[in-house]
């Protein structure tokens, strides 16, 4: 068997390893986590070695990857779509500096928001940064395209954005490997005129980037990721990324023969699109994500011959599938069995025995004694505290926003102002907000739910836990007597309530760290220990 059964995410990882990367940089985020995890577990990568431990956040990850590229080596940086918001400053500006060693940024979008707070489309970022974007539609293509993305990056001296979505990231297929190549040798680039982005350099570099656009379009025209599937009839489909799979599925299932233009590399191959337009009367534009190119192709005043997400032929939101594409092509859905009425929802919930449960029991009891009982929270397993039976938290917006939103609310006069944030989210982007609060002496209580891991994404190493977290808080200026620790256990309920009540009543910055290991990672460690003895 020379095929490997790989998730789309893993196909990227293997493609990058075989392309000769020297490092991968990432912060965990569904559905991108498995890219980095695959490299961390890969024995060849360990031998070489390929550097792969987790970064504090997506911005630090991106900048480190850029630094590795500056030094002449190839680097991969991975994140989920909202992570690119965090890394956006580095991402956009790296298009101005350009790269030395190949730099590929793999971003996994989450249409339908299976595990995310929005369904933003990273291709918009690619356009915004004016960088080449690749969007392969199968696991095999992901492998090959990732490998080639490093060549493209080194050839045009720009970062390359590799975009995928949840379904492809989390779907397995057989992938054939090609021969792995060596890593680049160290050859740091002395080019301050490119990398020092003071205005006179930035203006010149920006013009270089603008001048590259024709070349990038030419590459798209020649790319195997953009191709025409010939057919008959005057109606065609332009299928972007994974939408190609659903379109071809419909073609196969219903025995249809309409022409399909597959798009997997941007900027758009203008000539191919133009030719397709002249050969078809009506065109369905199928994009997984925002109608980014549908909007462009329609033009401001609209082109009635273009169908897609904007005219209701396809739903405006959510991921696509073959049924949706069929319906968009006017194929009547066949009758299917309904879900029986007795079937109930089974929403995700905090695990039985999880320390967050005991933290919320204590916190909710304490908060009920105040007239205002808003709790600002953040992104992690503890966000499930928003659901029944806890209803313990009242905000979750973006990584780190619990502390800063609580601070702003405190500035507005809200008392008490309480934030709940996890250890990994705190080091991701909570620390700077805490510094703001300390500098302003805001009356605010930050509860750090320290479960010793990044639990929601499957238990990855957290940047700071335990005593390191205490040291960070001290270093930021939290007063020693208002830096408390508790152990969230049922048997500690009374004393935990006392600590929380004291600190929430304090008219300044206080931090309570609730320390208890995630039961999932604890159980996993136990299993590995048993297996190894």
């Amino acid at each position, binding site marked *: 068997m020379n095929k490997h059964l790989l998730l789309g995410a893993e196909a990227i990882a293997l493609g990058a390893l075989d392309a000769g990367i020297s490092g991968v940089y990432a912060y965990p985020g569904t559905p991108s986590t498995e890219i980095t995890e695959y490299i961390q577990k890969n024995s060849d990568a360990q031998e070489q070695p390929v550097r792969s431990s987790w970064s504090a956040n997506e911005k630090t990850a991106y900048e480190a990857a850029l630094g590795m590229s500056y030094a002449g080596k190839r680097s991969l940086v991975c994140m989920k779509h909202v992570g690119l918001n965090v890394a956006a400053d580095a991402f956009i500006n790296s298009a101005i500096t350009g790269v030395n060693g190949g730099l590929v940024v793999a971003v996994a979008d989450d249409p339908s928001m299976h595990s995310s707070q929005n369904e933003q489309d990273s291709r918009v970022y690619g356009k915004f940064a004016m960088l080449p974007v690749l969007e392969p539609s199968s696991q095999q293509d992901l492998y090959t395209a990732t490998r080639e993305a490093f060549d493209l990056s080194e050839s045009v001296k720009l970062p390359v954005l590799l975009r995928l979505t949840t379904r492809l990231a*989390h779907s397995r297929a057989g992938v054939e490997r090609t021969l792995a190549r060596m890593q680049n040798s160290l050859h740091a680039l002395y080019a301050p005129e490119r990398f020092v982005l003071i205005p006179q350099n930035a203006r010149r570099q920006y013009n270089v980037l603008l001048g590259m656009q024709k070349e990038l379009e030419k590459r798209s025209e020649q790319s195997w990721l953009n191709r025409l599937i010939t057919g008959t009839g005057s109606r065609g489909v332009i299928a972007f990324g994974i939408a190609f799979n659903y379109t071809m599925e419909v073609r196969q299932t219903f025995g249809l023969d309409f022409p399909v233009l597959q798009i997997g590399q941007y900027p758009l191959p203008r000539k191919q699109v133009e030719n397709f337009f002249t050969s078809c009367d009506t065109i369905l534009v199928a994009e997984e994500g925002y109608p980014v190119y549908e909007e462009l192709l329609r033009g401001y005043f609209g082109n009635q011959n273009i169908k897609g997400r904007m005219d209701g032929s396809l739903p405006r939101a959510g991921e696509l599938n073959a049924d949706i594409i069929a319906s968009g092509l006017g194929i009547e859905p066949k009758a299917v*069995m309904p*879900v029986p009425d007795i079937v109930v929802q*089974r929403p995700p919930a905090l695990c039985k025995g999880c320390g967050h449960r005991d933290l919320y029991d204590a916190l909710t009891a304490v908060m009920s004694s105040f007239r205002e009982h808003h709790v600002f929270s953040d992104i992690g*397993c503890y966000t*499930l505290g928003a659901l029944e039976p806890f209803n313990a938290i009242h905000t979750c917006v973006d990584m780190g926003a619990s502390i800063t939103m609580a601070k702003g609310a405190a500035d507005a006069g809200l008392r008490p102002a309480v934030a709940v944030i996890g250890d990994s989210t705190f080091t991701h982007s909570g620390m700077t907000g805490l510094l703001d609060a300390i500098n302003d002496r805001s009356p605010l209580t930050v509860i750090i739910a320290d479960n010793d891991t990044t639990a929601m994404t499957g238990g990855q190493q957290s940047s700071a836990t335990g005593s390191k977290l205490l040291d960070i808080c001290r270093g930021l200026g939290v007063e020693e007597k208002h830096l408390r620790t508790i152990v969230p256990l049922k048997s500690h309920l009374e004393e935990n309530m006392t600590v929380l009540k004291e600190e929430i009543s304090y008219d300044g910055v206080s931090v309570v760290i609730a320390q208890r290991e995630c039961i999932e990672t604890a159980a996993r460690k136990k299993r590995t220990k048993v*297996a190894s003895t």
Partner: protein
Amino acid sequence: MHINIILAGVGGQGILSIAAVIGRAALQSNLTIRQTEVHGMSQRGGAVQSHLRISDREIYSDLIAEGTAQMILSVEPHEALRYLPFLAPESRIITSIDPFVNVENYPAIEDILAELNRTNRPVLVNAAELAREAGNARTSNMVMLGAAAPYIGIATEQLESAIGELFHAKGPDIVDINIRAFRKGQELSQTQATEP
């Protein structure tokens, strides 16, 4: 050869191991495969599903279209019903009858069984009991894989060798128990198939 299987269960019940075994066996049989998984937030005690597609020709979509699954294979009876719209006419549900109750409004098991019996010749399996007989209550998933085996279209030897590979790292005892569980499920399924 072309089969679409909806795998269903609750987070932590081991449906991904079922998928991994079938996937390996399919690759060894030189078949094309696509298999989706659910990661992240929904895993925590939530409903999980996997779309598994195996074919001797090219497969385009990772997702199964409604009304086109030849099988719903579930390790939990209530979860089997959730995906009924995917089932093709004349196709069947193969499910464990052991309820996993982690929600207050979980329906009565009699009602669930009644709904299951309304479908086309379901294979209902006392998976937990057979798993215990095999030697480990946690092998219910392999019992269910065994129960599905006669309908998948991949040779038993390929499936058993894939079980061996998957559990290899855990030692020969664990491999044996899982193979036993697989055979118990297969036996029950074959007996049911010969009943009128």
